[in-house]
């Protein structure tokens, strides 16, 4: 059992084991951005509607704005910063750039992580399945068509790898 004091919490972020002292009311979004300087994860609506704060928790896309950081103890977290390998972009990242599926970029980290979670479960999704998987990621500038095309193309690239 743990109490209102700062709790020592250990989790893996992008492959690195991190130990932090966290106050119970801090969300995973707060800790990623403010304590770990991982500002690729965006803060949007903070009510679970927009998906800008999406990260992978044990491989599944979740909303970091509605996750208390302490409850992520022992878990494996991947943020947008953890997707590329050094300078080599992840196929989803390359496909988003090449298809013009990115404009202001605010929704993109969440979009890419939701797509990544989908492709982990389903390497060959239909456009309908892609739409359903991305229905929790709102974009206010590009529209969604290019995003869907980028995910389809990335899925192809990953299947060939």
């Amino acid at each position, binding site marked *: *059992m*743990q*109490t*209102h004091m700062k*709790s020592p919490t250990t989790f893996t972020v992008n492959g690195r084991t991190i130990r932090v002292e966290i*106050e*119970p*009311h801090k*969300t995973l979004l707060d800790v990623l951005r403010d304590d770990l300087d991982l500002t690729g994860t965006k803060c949007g609506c*903070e*009510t*679970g509607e927009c*998906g800008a704060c*999406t990260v992978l*928790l044990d491989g*599944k*896309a*979740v*909303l970091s*704005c*509605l*996750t*208390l950081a*302490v*409850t992520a103890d022992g878990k494996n977290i991947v943020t947008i910063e953890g997707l590329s390998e050094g300078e080599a972009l992840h196929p989803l990242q390359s496909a988003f750039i090449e298809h013009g599926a990115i404009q202001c970029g605010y929704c993109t980290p969440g979009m890419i992580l*939701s797509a990544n*979670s*989908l492709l982990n479960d389903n390497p060959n999704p239909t456009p309908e399945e892609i739409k*359903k*998987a*991305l*229905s*929790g*990621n709102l974009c206010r500038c590009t529209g969604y068509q290019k995003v869907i095309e980028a995910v389809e193309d990335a899925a192809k690239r990953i299947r060939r790898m």
Partner: protein
Amino acid sequence: MYYTRILKPFNLLMPQTIDEAISILAKYGNKAKILAGGTDLLVKMRQRVLTPGCVVSVNKIKGLNAIDGDPKGELRIGAATTMRSIESSRVVQDYYTVLHEAVCQIGTAQVRNMATIGGNLCNASPAADTAPPLISLGAEIKIVSAPGNRETTRLIPIEGFFAGPGKTILQSDEMLTEIRLKPIAKGTGCAFLKIGRLGVDISKVSAAACIRIVDGVCKVARISLGAVAPTPIRAKKAEITLEGKKICEDIVAEAGDAGAEEIRPVKDMRSTADYRREVSKVIVRRVIIRACQRAGVDV
């Protein structure tokens, strides 16, 4: 609506067992709130609708997020099982189709990865999409209480669980731990339908039906509606209209009208009451038709 970035500080407790959780609830009373997926609770805490002094996370309790048992005897779904786990369960998909259909349509992918079935029920929204399917299946829920005057464990039918918008019969020292589903009798078909602005939105009207047909005659009908009364309801008049009758287009239309008579809809930002009344007729009719088709009878 009042809204703030910062959650008001609270004690966070992470019990390892149900007993430990119950004793915390008994100690803190109304000041404690259970945290499961967080998709409802943390939003309400940000809006300052709720400001619990103590948050009890149930995510470390072993077995509370498991689906076990067997559809031929009894299937048990732990209260902290996520929508995603239920969506992926072969047994739920094959035997309890009505629940599978509802869960697949709840929220977004991220929300389904986080939100739990127990949270959906205890949050007690009249529009909770898991409630009508469970009512139509005649599900029971297990409630565990602190030692005292009551039984420490009781099983009650799910339809008796809801007390009003956001309210259940749970006392402050009680916890919902499990949902139990009975076997589906031969010749039964079930289905769920909802109307919302978009798939991911909160339902304006939802309906579930579980219908057993033998030689073209409806033996048992269980119909439930959501978002059209202060709690999810059973449409008993619609059930009576069907039971004992040969299934045909007229009788199904009559049941739809009977179902719409039982609702007590509100007018809100999602729909007018009149709209809900009209649409309820159609949705009840359609959900019955789909359930009958699955029982092998075309209407």
